[in-house]
């Protein structure tokens, strides 16, 4: 039995009257690479936003390493509007801001790349090291933390070398080609020393060769940094090649999950992706 790193229980996310995620439960085990797939607008990124605390889930709970990091139930106005289920199952209210979640060991990348645009490649990654500092504002300003700073710089350099970004380290992050910006986002996430890495469409905009390279890259960093990886992706070759398990959602609801072969042959998944032809109805 492998241990849970991440577990979602009955997560519902409702914006006004729109239910973006509906009663979703899933788990990601240590060392696994798990994919979350689904048609456009299925609510995949919303799942990430709930896990990382960008959105406050309307109902449900999230566990990280078996510790509850989020728990909520419909409150206030939502009580009346709530369209989901299990409204009484989670009496506690635990809400953490994204920075707290990251400091627990969950790092993420963004679907629409969000690099620090005024900074160089090196600074982008170095900034992510800020979270790990132990010194206060005065000692950093007076440079009493020079050892820590030097360490952070060295680690950043190593990371850039590992990801093949060391030759562009003085360039402005936004001047990099698209593919490299994706790698830089991963480097920045790794700089926070996560145990769980959430990748939101890392292969978006890449050609087949680049996607293949990315596939083996993700596998290799999983082993090298002792990571658990949770991916949202549309490139099916990558998903089928890389995933230990796959979850499929459509309209915010889980419609299938299992190992790649199972999911590939699931009627519900095929329907969701290809739609139902009129004759069948």
């Amino acid at each position, binding site marked *: 039995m492998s241990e849970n790193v991440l577990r979602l229980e009955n997560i519902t996310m409702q914006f006004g009257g729109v239910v973006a995620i509906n009663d979703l439960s899933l788990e990601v085990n240590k060392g696994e690479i798990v994919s979350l797939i689904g048609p456009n607008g299925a609510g995949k*990124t919303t799942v990430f*936003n709930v896990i990382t605390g*960008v959105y406050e889930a309307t109902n449900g709970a999230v566990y990280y390493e078996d510790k509850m990091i989020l728990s909520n139930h419909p409150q206030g106005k939502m009580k009346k509007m709530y369209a989901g289920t299990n409204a009484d199952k989670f009496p506690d209210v635990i809400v953490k801001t994204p920075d707290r979640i990251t400091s627990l060991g969950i790092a993420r990348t*963004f679907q629409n790349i969000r690099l620090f645009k005024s900074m160089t490649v090196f600074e982008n990654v170095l900034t992510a090291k800020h979270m790990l500092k132990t010194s206060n504002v005065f000692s950093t300003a007076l440079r009493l933390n020079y050892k820590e700073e030097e360490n952070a710089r060295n680690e950043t350099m190593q990371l850039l070398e590992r990801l093949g970004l060391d030759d562009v380290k003085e360039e402005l992050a936004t001047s990099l080609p698209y593919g490299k910006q994706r790698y830089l986002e991963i480097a920045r996430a790794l700089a926070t020393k996560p145990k769980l890495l959430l990748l939101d469409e890392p292969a978006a905009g890449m050609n087949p060769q680049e996607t293949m390279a990315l596939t083996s890259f993700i596998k290799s960093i999983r082993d090298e940094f002792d990571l658990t990886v949770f991916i949202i992706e549309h490139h099916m070759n990558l998903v089928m090649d890389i995933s230990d398990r796959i979850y499929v959602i459509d309209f915010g609801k889980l419609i299938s999950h299992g190992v790649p072969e199972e999911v590939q042959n699931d009627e519900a998944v095929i329907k969701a992706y290809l739609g139902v032809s009129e004759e069948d109805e």
Partner: protein
Amino acid sequence: MFGKLFSTCLPYILSGISVGGQYALIAIGYTMVYGILRLINFAHGDIFMVAGLIMIYSNVSITPLFMNMGFSAESAFIFSIIASVVIVLVLTVLLGLTIEKAAYRPLRSAPRMSVMISAIGVSYLIQNAAIYITGGLAKPYPTKGAAMPWLSDQITVGSTSIKRVTVITPILTILLVLALVLLIKKTKIGMAMRAVSKDFRTSRLMGIEVNNVISVTFFIGSFLAAVGSLLYFTNYASVTPTSGAMPGLKAFVAAVFGGIGSVPGAVVGAFIIGICENILKGLDNILSTAGVFKDGFTFGFATFSDAFTFILLIVILCVKPTGLFGEKNTDKV
């Protein structure tokens, strides 16, 4: 006792309603510009002040013209006032449109902070220009003698005697606001305005001439500011280069209070602020009359009549940042 308290309160409430109406006319300019450009038009208060100065200068230079034409001093003055009102309205609108064209249009694609800085720069420029032209002195508003004769007449309401402008202001304000709401709701340009304020870029793609819509917005805003200025300065008797700053800021707070982007919200907010501010000015007096403050004790509430507006602002921003009638905007991740 109660009657006496009422008669103490009444003048403050009445002038509060009047000032509120004047703030409302300025606040509409703020709220409409913000609704469409997401810009706090810091120069709007100064446009209001310039309208006051135009009135003074045009009246001074036109009266002799009429006198040369053979009218008596008194009727020349009245004609000159009427002509000046027209000039004020026209020139103020032109000023508003020019500012938009010269200082905001070139920055349409720039970050919001740049446009806001430009607005602050325009405000700084207008104030300095006004100091230069007036020599930094307070200029008397033409209210004496037969000038603005009808507006500044005293009339009696109940037991208190007030200027007629105090009663006229709220009525005129409400009429103008109704007309404006009809314009926004019923006409084609109003529909375009609503569309642009919802989504600037999509409206442009849908073929709406965004620049025209913005010009119309500035036209309306400046026009109402000019009307507000005519009413406001009739009460205050003189104009200084900085006399637009405070009413401007307060009107902006009123717009935020009512929910920025919403015209009725701005009007309601302006009346609330106007009334509260004036009651605060008289609160020492009122509380002494009511017997709460004894032996000539005073608190000095009047010192805070300006600050009150900002306290209200901070409270409303913290409790309900969207204001009374505002809509919520969320960022997409």
